[in-house]
């Protein structure tokens, strides 16, 4: 994975000094809270309902064991013993003291981490495929391109005060594991007819209160124009994105209001102009970055045999592992969704254990997934049972990847100042109702996502089943959506009808799953059945 050189280290060290100075001026009263707010947000520091929340960046979701260990230590030292992994592959801490934050950032900088641009109206942490560099079906490893973009977007002077936040995802396989088309800019690395690698650009996707799927804006951007083209996309947005209404300020509204073709025309015009400017890094820089992402030293001829006599292990292997490009290896996902637990939470101790296992058995590498789980990308099959036993002893062996128990949920009203309703208790009730191995096996792949308000941090639009918490005359109320997807077949869920109470929505989901099981043909997933038979039978069962 990427290793800082002296320049990268200097950049994060400088940021720590800058932020320390900002906190000093705030505590001295030289900065008002109104002035401080946009500054602290650019450093991932939110003021939540009960305390400050600090969001730490995990660029494209990749980290090593030293970094992971520190994340566990921060949970114990500065928070209440746990951290929360997020849908942008980051981690956040919910109980932080303002005066501690400069020291936390300084500790992070020592292991090449930071909280730069994890919030605010700027280019956010760039997300990617959690199986990058390990999956069998990828065209290239997308992470070098994400790293090139990370450096370009860090403190980009023209794009630090955009109309609104800006999220970029980079993938490089047909299977989209990063919800690429639900980003402000989605980039898919592709190979053209001449066999050259380039970038396919999508723009104007997003969730929030106006969900949109990003249209394709360019088939192929050559690698030696990647930064210039990105700059053109951002400049058009910075100049013409709406600033009169924060709910209409995302690029999706600009692309929608201009129309895809007019946005493309303006970007191409700006691109042609910017190509005359000396702003594109040489390909040698990309080559330098790529040397950090070469394959680890896989053992040639490692055995593909797995002893599956332990039934619990067998279930976990079937559910939580994915084919690796290297024979004898496997990609293993640690679910942070135990029955009745808080999705994405892990204790300091669990975080350090995962770090140690990654060091011993996964070439010192881990990934955070946008579904709020942790991945060991390169585990030798011969070691897998040992890894599983250690996870099992720590309460980390839940076998429910991509099933109804693997719920994405935002922090909701338990923590968040924006929320209208609680998300976590709903997630807990659902996992208790449907979390048994038998129930999960019966229901198969079923992606369930919960947001506690219309901002959609819990990706409810993209859930096969989505839940949106709203405030209805002072009471928490939950709307149900069906048919969303974040995969290569991206679609937006449709609302079933009137909302429910907390218990009512769990019952409604039960009815929806009954309709699925009664109508399922062959190997159909819930989503496939829904797409085939449509909303009507579900609606009838739920409200009839």
């Amino acid at each position, binding site marked *: 994975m990427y290793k800082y*050189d002296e*320049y990268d280290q*200097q*950049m994060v060290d*400088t940021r720590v*000094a*800058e932020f320390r*100075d*900002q906190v000093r*001026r705030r505590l001295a009263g*030289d900065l008002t809270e109104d*002035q401080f707010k*946009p*500054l602290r947000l650019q450093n991932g520091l939110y003021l939540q309902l009960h305390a400050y929340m600090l969001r730490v960046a995990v660029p494209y979701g990749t980290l090593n064991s030293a970094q992971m260990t520190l994340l566990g230590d921060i949970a114990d030292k500065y928070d209440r013993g746990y951290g929360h992994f997020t849908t942008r592959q980051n981690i956040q801490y919910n109980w932080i003291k303002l005066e501690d934050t400069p020291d936390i950032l300084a500790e992070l900088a020592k292991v090449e981490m930071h909280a730069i641009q994890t919030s605010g*109206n700027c280019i956010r942490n760039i997300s990617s495929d959690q199986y990058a560099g390990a999956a069998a079906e990828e065209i290239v490893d997308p992470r070098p391109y994400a790293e090139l973009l990370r*450096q*370009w977007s*860090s*403190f*980009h*002077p*023209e*794009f*630090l*005060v*955009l109309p609104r936040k800006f999220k970029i995802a980079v993938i490089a396989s047909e299977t989209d594991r990063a919800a690429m088309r639900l980003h402000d800019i989605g980039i898919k690395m592709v190979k053209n007819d001449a066999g050259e690698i380039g970038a396919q650009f999508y723009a104007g996707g997003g969730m929030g209160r106006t969900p949109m799927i990003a249209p394709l804006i360019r088939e192929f951007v050559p690698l030696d124009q990647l930064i210039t083209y990105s700059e053109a996309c951002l*400049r058009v947005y*910075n*100049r013409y994105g709406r*600033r009169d209404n924060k709910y209409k300020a995302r690029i999706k509204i600009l692309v929608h209001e201009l129309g895809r073709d007019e946005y493309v025309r303006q970007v191409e015009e700006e691109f042609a*102009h910017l190509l005359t*400017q*000396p*702003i594109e*890094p*040489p390909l*040698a*820089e990309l080559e*330098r970055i790529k040397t950090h992402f070469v394959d680890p030293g896989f053992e040639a001829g490692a055995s593909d045999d797995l002893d599956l006599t332990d039934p619990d292990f067998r279930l976990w292997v079937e559910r939580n592992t994915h084919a690796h490009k290297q024979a004898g290896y496997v990609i293993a996902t640690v679910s942070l969704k135990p029955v009745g637990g808080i999705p994405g939470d892990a204790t300091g101790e669990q975080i350090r254990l995962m770090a140690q296992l990654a060091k011993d058995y996964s070439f010192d590498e881990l990934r955070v997934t946008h579904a709020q789980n942790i991945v060991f990308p390169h585990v030798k099959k011969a070691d897998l049972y040992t890894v599983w036993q250690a996870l099992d002893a720590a309460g980390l062996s839940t076998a429910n990847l991509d099933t109804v128990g693997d719920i994405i949920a935002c922090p909701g009203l338990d923590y968040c100042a924006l929320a209208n309703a609680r998300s976590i208790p709903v997630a807990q009730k659902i996992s208790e109702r449907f979390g048994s191995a038998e129930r999960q096996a019966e229901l198969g792949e079923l992606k369930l996502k919960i947001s506690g308000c219309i901002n959609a941090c819990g990706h409810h639009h993209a859930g096969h089943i989505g839940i949106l918490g709203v405030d209805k005359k002072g009471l928490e109320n939950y709307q149900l959506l069906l048919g969303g997807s974040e995969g290569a077949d991206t679609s937006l869920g449709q609302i079933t009808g009137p909302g429910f109470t907390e218990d009512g929505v769990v019952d409604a989901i039960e009815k929806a799953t009954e309709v699925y099981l009664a109508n399922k043909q062959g190997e159909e997933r819930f989503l496939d059945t829904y797409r085939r038979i449509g909303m009507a039978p579900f609606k009838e069962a739920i409200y009839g």
Partner: protein
Amino acid sequence: MVDVQFRFREDEAVNDPAVTVDSFGEQSNATAVRIEPGDDARDLLPHLNRLSLVEVSFPAWTDGRGYSSARILREAGYAGELRAVGDLVIDMLSHLKRCGFDAFAPDKALNEQDAQNAFDRWENVYQATGVDGRQAIWAKRHG
């Protein structure tokens, strides 16, 4: 008229009254113009040779359109004074400078020492803006 607090030019300060972009088009003798956030900086490109001062207004520092306006003017070869005016905050000074601004007239005077620290903060930068004369980190890596 607000005072220029920081200036990074050797030539004599320009004190001509700045006119709006609209009236600039009609006044063939004006040498100073003021760009508001909604104005298109490219409207000025045919007239760059008679301009000696462009003010870019920041009614609120969180409206970042002026950063693009500045770079567009510099990219087109404008070499006169480019002055940021309005709600300027210390923490954005070096970023403004990187987009081509070389004079700063904040509504309220900024703490001199804090501002100086901010201008000097970033010894290295990740991007080439092409308009601030600075070498990007990638250029140093492959120099």
